[in-house]
């Protein structure tokens, strides 16, 4: 017990010393902490890159890129507590658990720190606003647009989803159906379910090619499905004939882009996400904007985000990846 107290004391002294050092050194720098689920994850490293970009654009802004070494809420709480002690101006967090980190973040807000969540949200009480990478409407529109853009004369498309009960996929498909009127000539001939299993998705894709010989595109809004469908199309020798598109990760889809089975696909861009989170945090911390329902907060080159009743907003359309940018992103996430 005695030893622990002593260690804590030393740590406290060290912290005070460093605090004094930094505050003396950078009086008017705004310090924004980008707290991620865990360090060493490509997706978040890319987000940090975007955050630095935003800081450079804003000027006088320092980014503290931090997070626990494993994806636990406990680890994040420790990180948050140390950030409170350092007296940062803003915390932008992608939470490992929406509720567990909320009390620590509430404490941060009581100390006057601006708190926003991005990517993975925090309970409403624990943040001023939440930035979603995209919205269901935007995703629903994007997946059909990806297919339609390569079919100027219209054509048949089929959907390969996850399971029949996957909430996200069902909402996206529903949103997609709503905007079908904007894409005349595009006909959705079937919706099949690969259950997010590589073998079943592969078989379903083969079934689609057999049942609909004139099929032009397969839309798979799920990462396992899109990879399996692209493989099935490539194996059937129909790469270039049938375009597999939807939502996937660049690292997983690089082979499909290379083989030509997929012309393009989409997913959020972590660089844009980190950039926008910092832009918002800066605007809120400097008092240029307030986080309230209906407010529009500027995000630099990403435009504005409009907040809904739960003070959350959607950043943008999912970002499109194709042969021109896949090499840049496949090593990131």
């Amino acid at each position: 017990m005695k030893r622990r107290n002593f260690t804590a004391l030393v740590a406290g002294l060290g912290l005070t010393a460093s605090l004094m050092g930094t505050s003396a050194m950078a009086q008017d720098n705004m310090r924004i902490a980008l707290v991620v689920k865990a360090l060493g994850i490509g997706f978040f490293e890319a987000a940090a890159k975007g955050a630095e970009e935003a800081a450079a654009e804003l000027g006088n802004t320092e980014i503290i890129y931090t997070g626990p070494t494993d994806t636990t809420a406990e680890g994040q709480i420790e990180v948050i507590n140390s950030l409170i002690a350092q007296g940062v101006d803003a915390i932008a967090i992608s939470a490992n658990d929406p509720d567990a980190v909320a009390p620590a973040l509430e404490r941060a807000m009581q100390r006057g720190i601006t708190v926003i969540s991005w990517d993975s949200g925090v309970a409403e009480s624990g943040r001023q606003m939440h930035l979603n990478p995209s919205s269901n409407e935007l995703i629903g529109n994007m997946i059909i647009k990806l297919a339609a853009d390569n079919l100027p004369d219209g054509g048949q498309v089929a959907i390969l989803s996850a399971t029949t009960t996957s909430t996200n996929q069902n909402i996206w498909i529903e949103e997609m159906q709503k905007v079908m009127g904007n894409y005349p000539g595009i006909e959705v001939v079937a919706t099949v379910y690969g259950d997010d299993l590589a073998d079943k998705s592969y078989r379903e894709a083969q079934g689609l090619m057999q049942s609909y010989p004139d099929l032009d595109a397969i839309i798979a809004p799920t990462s396992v499905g899109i990879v399996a469908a692209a493989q099935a199309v490539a194996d059937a020798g129909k790469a270039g004939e049938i375009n597999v598109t939807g939502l996937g990760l660049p690292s997983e889809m690089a082979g499909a882009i290379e083989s030509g089975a997929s012309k393009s696909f989409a997913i959020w861009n972590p660089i844009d996400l980190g950039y926008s989170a910092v832009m918002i945090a800066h605007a809120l911390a400097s008092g240029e904007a307030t986080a309230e329902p209906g407010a529009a907060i500027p995000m630099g080159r990403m435009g504005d985000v409009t907040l809904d009743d739960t003070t959350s907003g959607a950043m943008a359309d999912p970002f499109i990846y194709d042969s021109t940018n896949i090499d840049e992103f496949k090593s990131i996430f």
Partner: protein
Amino acid sequence: MLKRYLTSREALLFAAIVALCLLIATRFAGFVAPSNLLRVFNDTSPLILLAIGQMIVILTKCIDLSVAANLALSGMCVAMLNLAYPDLPVAVIVMVAIGLGALMGMFNGILVWKLAIPPIVVTLGTLTIYRGFVFLVSDGSWVNSHQMSPAFKAFPRSELLGIPMMSWVALAAIVIFTVVMTRTTLGRAFYAVGGNPHAATYTGLNVGRTQFWAFTISGALAGLTGYLWVSRYAVAYVDIAGGFELDVVAACVIGGISIAGGIGTVGGAVLGALFLGIIKNALPVVDISPFWQMAISGAAIIIAVIVNSRTRRNTGRIILKSAEKPA
């Protein structure tokens, strides 16, 4: 002799498969085209390989629920091996996959043999352990298509006489294990140990050791399938073949392999696997609501088992006729 073949379980199951194909053909004529049937066989090859291994384990009154996890771990290991040493020849990769699978099978076998733990408990445990190891070795990340060497991905797809190598592997396994099961002492020992363990012990067979070899064979086949699976779908991740062990057991049950041990043939396991494989491949093309598909798969299994058990009903022999008569 001919009559015995015609009324065997395998013949009945074969007839059922033909009937099933014809039924599917009424809804989707292209299904029975030879090229498509070859494709279905190729798609079912992993299931056939695993079902043969599982059959041997079930023959010895055991069950191996860890095959799918074994497949996933072997598959992930060889995928990562390929990632680290892209120039390693496929032959080495295949040997490593079989070796790893066999080791995992031996671990099951040792626990069953030396510690006499019920096989269902052992393999339920190792199922979770092996799945957990996949996570540990891969750190939860995927090995993707573009990271695998072209040779690694090409093997199951390359064709010999118009048939993909994956099908050839399954055909080779069918021939090899038919010979092993009918013509070798080890093969006959599997039947003896499952049919009547006590009698087997009296004839000098070591029941535990025979079960150990059954698990080893099942594991080796699972390892081989692991490589084929990963290279065919060109992706390795933690959940590959999740729940596949149930398909494998179902294939055996449909194929007339008695869960009580001692009864079953390689042919039965293969036909059982094909029956499931045909249903899996037909459902996407016959335009049936996905909500019904699972129910239909399940019903087909139960019907097959009922048919099997009915054909077996009269096999018991009354050896003391006089005792039956009232005194």
